[in-house]
């Protein structure tokens, strides 16, 4: 091998004996053009809708789904084809994406998703790749056509206006909210449970160790990275700090308080405030292995002893967001809509943190909220109660 390289170097480093300098330079140039042109033609050929739907995996699944959407047919006749959204428009990114795509060729040859069932099973993973990519580039392909600056907010419905203005101010990534806009959502996100799907769609993709995140919904916790022994449940909108990421598992720390009457299984966000952060199994709650115990003091309003704790446990990767405001926005909309069907919903700051659970529990029979949304809305109300608002009433 080493000899071959040396011989090759000897040949190319010698001046040419038989060919003219002109031929070599011009010919090289022309050959380069031909090669480059061919490459690009071939590349562009792979960049057409026709090519994309050439294999039945694409044709029978995502392509037919696209045809049901506004990106396929609309009153102005502008159609988004596959590469418009899925292939980056600048060259380096395009080449990078094409190299990634070789995996798709492999998949096509070996039949990884050659049936609808296989495709559906794999959809979550495939979608996650695209979401990650769009999150990383701040939804660049969407923004090639849709531009915040060009939007006339006055022409939007009132609801859209509120959301879009907020998004524009932060130059928010479109995919944060518009997952599933051109193809169906993965099944677990669209199982008739619209609320849950919306929450899941708020999850951030990719985490940084040492950073704080918030759970978008209730999540099971485990004692170690194998995610086998259940340690309890993390409540929605709970702040966690990521300590470690190991494949599918992430290690988190929760800084919380607990009441020490009973087994001390329930975690609360702050001293003497019944804002639920989650609960632990009896074993975990009473084991020093996962619990770091801090100061203790008595809550004067109930006479119960409270203790500060730091809990270290593991979660399955996913369902965390870096922005609690986004969760609050969702919770507020849900509260305003669901709790005003029968009566005017009380202002958030009308009650204090520890009164809200009683008021909220007492009215739940009348609203259609799943457990995750209930937990989130209650936490929103508590975090915006008179304890946190200035000049309530």
């Amino acid at each position, binding site marked *: 091998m080493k000899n071959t390289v040396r011989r090759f170097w000897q040949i190319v480093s010698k001046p040419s004996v038989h060919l003219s300098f002109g031929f070599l330079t011009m010919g090289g140039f022309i050959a380069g053009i031909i090669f480059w042109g061919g490459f690009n033609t071939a590349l562009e050929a792979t960049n057409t809708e026709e090519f994309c739907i050439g294999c039945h995996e694409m044709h029978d699944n995502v392509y037919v789904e696209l045809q049901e959407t506004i990106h396929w047919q609309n009153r102005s006749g502008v159609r988004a084809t596959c590469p418009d959204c899925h292939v980056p428009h600048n060259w380096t990114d395009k080449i990078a994406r094409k190299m990634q795509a070789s995996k798709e060729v492999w998949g096509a040859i070996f039949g990884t998703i050659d049936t609808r069932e296989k495709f559906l099973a794999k959809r979550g993973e495939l979608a996650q790749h695209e979401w990650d990519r769009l999150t990383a580039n701040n939804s660049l392909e969407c923004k090639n056509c849709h531009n915040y600056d060009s939007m006339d907010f006055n022409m939007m*419905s*009132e*609801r859209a*206006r*509120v959301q879009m203005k907020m998004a524009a101010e932060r130059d928010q990534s479109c995919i944060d909210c518009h997952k599933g806009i051109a193809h169906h959502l993965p099944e677990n996100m669209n*199982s*008739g*449970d*619209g609320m849950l799907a919306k929450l899941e769609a708020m999850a951030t993709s990719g985490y940084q160790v040492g950073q704080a995140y918030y759970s978008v919904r209730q999540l099971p916790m485990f004692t170690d990275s194998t995610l086998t022994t259940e340690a309890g449940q993390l409540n929605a909108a709970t702040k966690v700090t990521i300590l470690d990421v190991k494949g599918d598992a992430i290690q988190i720390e929760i800084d919380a308080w607990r*009441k020490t009457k*009973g*087994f001390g*299984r*329930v975690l609360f966000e702050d001293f003497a405030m*019944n804002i639920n952060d989650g*609960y632990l199994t009896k074993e975990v709650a009473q084991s020093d292995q996962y619990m770091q115990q801090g100061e203790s003091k008595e809550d*004067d*309003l*109930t*006479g*119960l002893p409270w203790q500060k704790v730091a809990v270290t446990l593991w979660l399955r990767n996913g369902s965390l967001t870096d922005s609690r405001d986004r969760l609050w926005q969702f919770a507020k909309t849900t509260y*305003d*809509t*669901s709790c*005003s*069907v*029968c*009566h*005017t*919903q*009380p*202002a958030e700051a*009308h009650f*204090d943190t*520890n*009164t*809200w*659970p*009683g*008021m*909220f*529990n*007492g*009215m*739940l*029979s*009348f609203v*259609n909220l799943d457990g995750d949304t209930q937990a989130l809305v209650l936490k929103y109300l508590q975090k915006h109660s*008179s304890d946190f608002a200035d000049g*309530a*009433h």
Partner: protein
Amino acid sequence: MTISRRSFLKGIAATSAAGLIGPSLLQQAVAAASESPGQWQVSGSHWGAFRARVYAGKVQEIKPFEADSYPTEMLKGIKGIIYSPSRIRYPMVRYDWFLKRHQSDTKQRGDNRFIRVTWDQAIDMFYQELERVQTQYGPWALHTGQTGWRQTGQVHSCGNHMERAIAMHGYSVKKVGDYSTGAGQTIMPYVLGSTEVYAQGTSWPLILKHSKTIVLWGSDLVKNLQVGWNCETHEAYEYLEQLKEKVAKKQIRVISVDPVRTKTQKYLNCEQQYVNPQTDVPFMLGIAHTLYSEKLHDENFLKTYALGFEDFIPYVMGKSKDKVEKTPEWAESICGIAADDIREFARLLAKQRTQIIFGWCVQRQQHGEQPYWMGAVIAAMLGQIGLPGGGISYAHHYSSIGVPSTGAAGPGGFPRNPDNPDDRIHKNNDFKGYSSTIPVARWVDAIIEPGKKINANGATITLPDLKMMVFSGCNPWHHHQDRNRMKQAFQKLETVVSVDFTWTATCRFADIVLPACTQWERNDIDLYGSYSSRGIIAMHKLVDPLFQSKTDFDIFTLLAKRFGKDKAYTQGKGEMEWVKQLYDECAQANKGKFEMPDFATFWQQGWVDFGKGENWTRQADFREDPEINALGTPSGFIEIFSRKIDRYGYDDCQGHPMWFEKAERSHGGPGSDKHPIWLQSCHPDKRLHSQMCDSEAFRATYTVQGREPLYMNPKDAAQRGIKDGDLVRVFNQRGQLLAGAVVSDDYAPGVARLQEGAWYGPESEAIGALDTYGDPNTLTMDIGTSQLAQATSANTCLVEIEKYQGDAPAVTAFGGPVEIS
């Protein structure tokens, strides 16, 4: 299938005729012969679902919905609501207000003289007044928060429409709480961690299976379960029927604690424990004393699930506060129950599985927080909370609570809030130091004493200086207390708008009155069974809006159009689009759990049936694991002593339940020397609050000489020379009314009843004028229950009754305004 003689004969006639004439002609002939003309259509109501035969543009006949096995008699009143002479026909404006607008002579308010205007004029005036109040004063001067029982239907729900449209124009003063359960819903979150009054209760099948004793504490199930917040299913009556059987077989002992023999007591043929009015707390303290002294209380339960028992029991044993030991003998002197009977009662509760079921009446009195709290303490001492057929509940009489729930989602509603809360014509949100939210029953206080600071639920409320009020499908001239005080207050208001389909007393005291149509003159959708979620009911429009009436949707779209927000208001959708949208969203929410047909199929079938639900035990999860399933109280446990309430420092609602003497109390209490008879104003048997009082023929089935019946004891009647069927004058220092006496042993001596919701019909607009029909709130007291809830105290009311002499004035309550032209 059973074949009636009639249908059999018709069948024979049809077959024999078939030989003579052709088949197509025959079918028509059969249809005509077998049914009265017209179309049968489905609709719903607070009184249940029904099918109506519509012919020649008129509702001809109403029959109960086939899925309703226990329809209420009140369905007979529906037609009379649609075709009532009290219907509002045209937009009307009070005569003097029409001349001078907001500078009108408000002393004329209530003289019922109105002038007819066009819709355009009326909406212009409405809009101009909103503009004037927002610019001249600000949001603190406008109160739109008083909302009530509306007509059913989730798209046209009138409060939602009014509040959405007004909110798109500007901010206004809102309320918290309601007239039905104000004290209960405020105290119970501190004690049991939920409002309780609106929470699902243990399922009836479990109560029937496990309870040995059922105590109905001021709860008249049979009377009150006739109506529901949404379309009522009456499923609970099936279980009451089974309970009746078990009572007869002596398998369950049911005791009704009540000064009156209730409809339920008579239906079940069960026992009564008489108690003096308003003295439930002394009775309960006597019970607690017995349980504690005889060690019948469950110490383990108290230790595990409750806090503060040790701070409470010294009060019972005479070691704290008033230093009076609350022995059964002490209780006897107040509540009128023999000390030994109190002991027996306590022992019975502790002996076996006991379900205590409270009604709402006892919390609609001064210190109404106390009996509810004390009931929870008794239940905690018995230690059966969280067991099937044990513990305590506060709402088994309401909207079929206790019927197992399917858990299906119901349709949402037309949005009450603007889609963008910041997008209003008037952005001024400065309430100038006044409170923007007030306890629901304190708005008349606000009009009379603006700027006054009152305590409410741990906060200080500054009563706003109200100048304008808007009511929609809401009749405070029925549900608020003390009419003559209201008259005084309304003289201070500049402008009052009332939107309704019928000329209530609220319209009489308003300036601009807009005619809405009834719920049967529009298309809508509703949940079938508020708590059982039995299904979804289609509400077909039966007839077009009568006279010049319009749907609430159309009325407030017109208003929103005045300030350019009609498109935002309707979201560009019409009535049927909204109905379909609510249905489709509901179907989406139920996907995978309950299959629902497409909208067209549903609309044609008239309903979707989700079937029967699952049994459930209240607080069972808490009993199983009080740490994870903590209650919503500050501590997460049952709070027998609330440090939080204690810290508020109120004298009329302290750290634990206590006995407080009332401002007025019969049977030897304060004021009974002057006005000896206690007047209870419970929910009516033949109306839904004030709804259906305007249904003429149906009203005639229960009135006495055209007046509201006043129920009283034979001895009380004899003493006053009153006979059954006499006209009587009922009066006290606050007011006077005419009613028709019904003399009955069901009422204990010193106890009388006028059912609330009887329409107010004053002889004139003058303060103190005689009410000609019999509205109990002519006589009731307008004070808060305590500084905690500030709720209504309607059941703290003493009166005197006399036979009415001379010519009785005509009833003025019905038939609409006096039209000036």
